[in-house]
């Protein structure tokens, strides 16, 4: 009995701590290939350089911005802004392809293509109207020989699975349960000690 109580106490403490640890350390956002949220900004990594990635669906969401996945089908505007000034002096090529798993015939799966061009203003805008939900891949190439490549898969019109929200709720419940068990056992031990 004494050992069982000790094990339960240890287990509940472990669960509680795991839940708290999970909640506190769950800061890193998931990244899609070359895209990630860094320094409170959606960034596209392109070799040693970075671009600020912003998506818009003005007819659906006004000027609300999104990063990575495109929430709904429809007219979509994506703008990539050069963070380092060096990117304004080298050609940048952008291609969006359907994610078929086979990229041997690139032109056949391409839905949008901006040929290599130097963007002096630092902004690379593209517009496309996605008509059906699905998975796509963005390919951004920079440099005279196309030596810097960024590849980022993304989805269109597929609602994201909000595991994070439910995990947060689960964590809070587990935390409460753990504290309840711990305080109950502590009280039992105190009563046992008094008798």
């Amino acid at each position, binding site marked *: 009995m004494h050992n069982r109580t000790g094990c339960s106490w240890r287990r509940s403490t472990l669960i509680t701590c795991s839940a708290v640890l999970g909640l506190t350390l769950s800061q890193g956002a998931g990244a899609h290939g070359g895209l990630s949220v860094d320094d409170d900004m959606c960034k596209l990594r392109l070799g040693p350089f970075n671009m600020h990635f912003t998506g818009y669906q003005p007819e659906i969401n006004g000027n609300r911005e999104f990063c990575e996945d495109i929430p709904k089908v429809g007219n979509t505007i994506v703008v990539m802004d050069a963070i380092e000034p060096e990117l304004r002096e080298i050609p940048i090529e952008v291609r969006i392809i359907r994610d078929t798993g086979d990229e041997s015939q690139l032109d056949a799966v391409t839905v949008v293509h901006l040929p290599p061009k130097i963007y*002096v203003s630092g902004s690379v805008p593209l517009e496309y109207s996605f008509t059906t939900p699905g998975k796509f891949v963005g390919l951004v190439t920079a440099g005279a020989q196309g030596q810097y490549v960024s590849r980022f898969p993304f989805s269109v019109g597929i609602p994201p699975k909000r595991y994070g929200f439910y995990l947060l709720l689960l964590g809070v419940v587990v935390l409460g349960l753990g504290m309840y068990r711990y305080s109950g056992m502590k009280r039992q031990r105190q009563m046992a000690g008094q008798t």
Partner: protein
Amino acid sequence: MSLHRMSLRRFGLSILLAAMTAATTLVSLPAAAHGERATEPYIRTRTVHWYDVTWSSEKIGVNDKVTVEGKFHLFTDWPDAASKPELAFLSNASPGAVMTRVESYINDMPAQQSVRQLEIGRDYPFKMVMAGRVPGRWHLHPVLNVHGAGPIVGPGHWVEVTGSAADYKLPVTTMTGEVIDDLQHYGVARVQWWQAGYALLAVAWIVWWIRRPLIVPRWNAIRKGREDLLITRTDDRVAAGLLVLVLVVVIGGYRYTTQKYEYVVPLQAGSFKTKPLPQVPSLVAVEMKDATYDVPGRSLRLDVEITNQSESPMRLGEFTTANLRFLDKSLDVAVAGVDPSFPKDLVAGSSLKLSDSSPIAPGEKRTLRIEATDAAWEIERLVSFLTNVDSRVGGMLFFFDAKGQRHMAEVFGPIVPVFTQLQLAQSH
């Protein structure tokens, strides 16, 4: 379960929680910047406009000096949400005390103290002399700290400090002729000894009282009318002894200090007032008719009515706001106005686009569309003015007459976001 095992578990749990706290607070990435992009755009575009800012050097050794100087214009359309510049302090923004500000001036007056009653709509020259202290590559900005509005940061330029931090010295000769070899360490050990001494007395006093039962037993004693148990004669003796000790230390310390340092100057907490630059009659009148920000095109479009009130033809050469400079690159005098030391990342790559770039004749009134296009609007985080309750934008227009003389004019007004066809945006 033994008391010993319980204590061990509590100890283990405490260590675990402490480690978790440390993981969330101590494990952090170093800051890449010092917040120059964090200030709200309505402050950066409509309060202090810095111009003609130069840095005397990009690379200095420890103890060497770099001078940052230029002018700032206090914008007429100062936002209601920000306090007016009734009290301000000229400073520098850099990541920590990596440089020492050894001199600072506003309108040639020493600006070690705050300046009061700066006049909105007027211009002030400034100068700061900084000495290299810690080796590294540092982003150095001028800053005007406006009481109630916060720090308003000017353009920043990378300055490299070379050498060894151990070689840094800040020598000072006092009014009495005493030479202090290095002000950065002067008197620090003495201050620490005084602080440690007082801290020791404070801790001893607290320990004296908390070693006994505290709140509830004492409250019970009072309830039962036994206050006599709470403070003993020994407590009285300790308290009196401590009081005497503290007073002796204070009086003795005061006497020692006044004898050793006969002439002292208190910390200077006053402020000064200085005149702005002489007001130049405005030869160009500008009125904003419409302003839009093309979100995907990263383009600010201003429709303005310009009246040339001078006797010389005028051309618009530059639009500047929030330290960003948009130049009409076809106008040589405007391009030449960018000092070689000015940071390249704050000059737009593409030219300022004008619906009509021909000179505005004397007396002519012309409506002009000005397009300032660059990724910097987003990178510098300047477009949140689109979601502010006060969605306005402001900036300075620099005109140049036939002799190349510069004439400045403010432009400001409400702004709305638009989404244009990208064919238009991509043509930039």
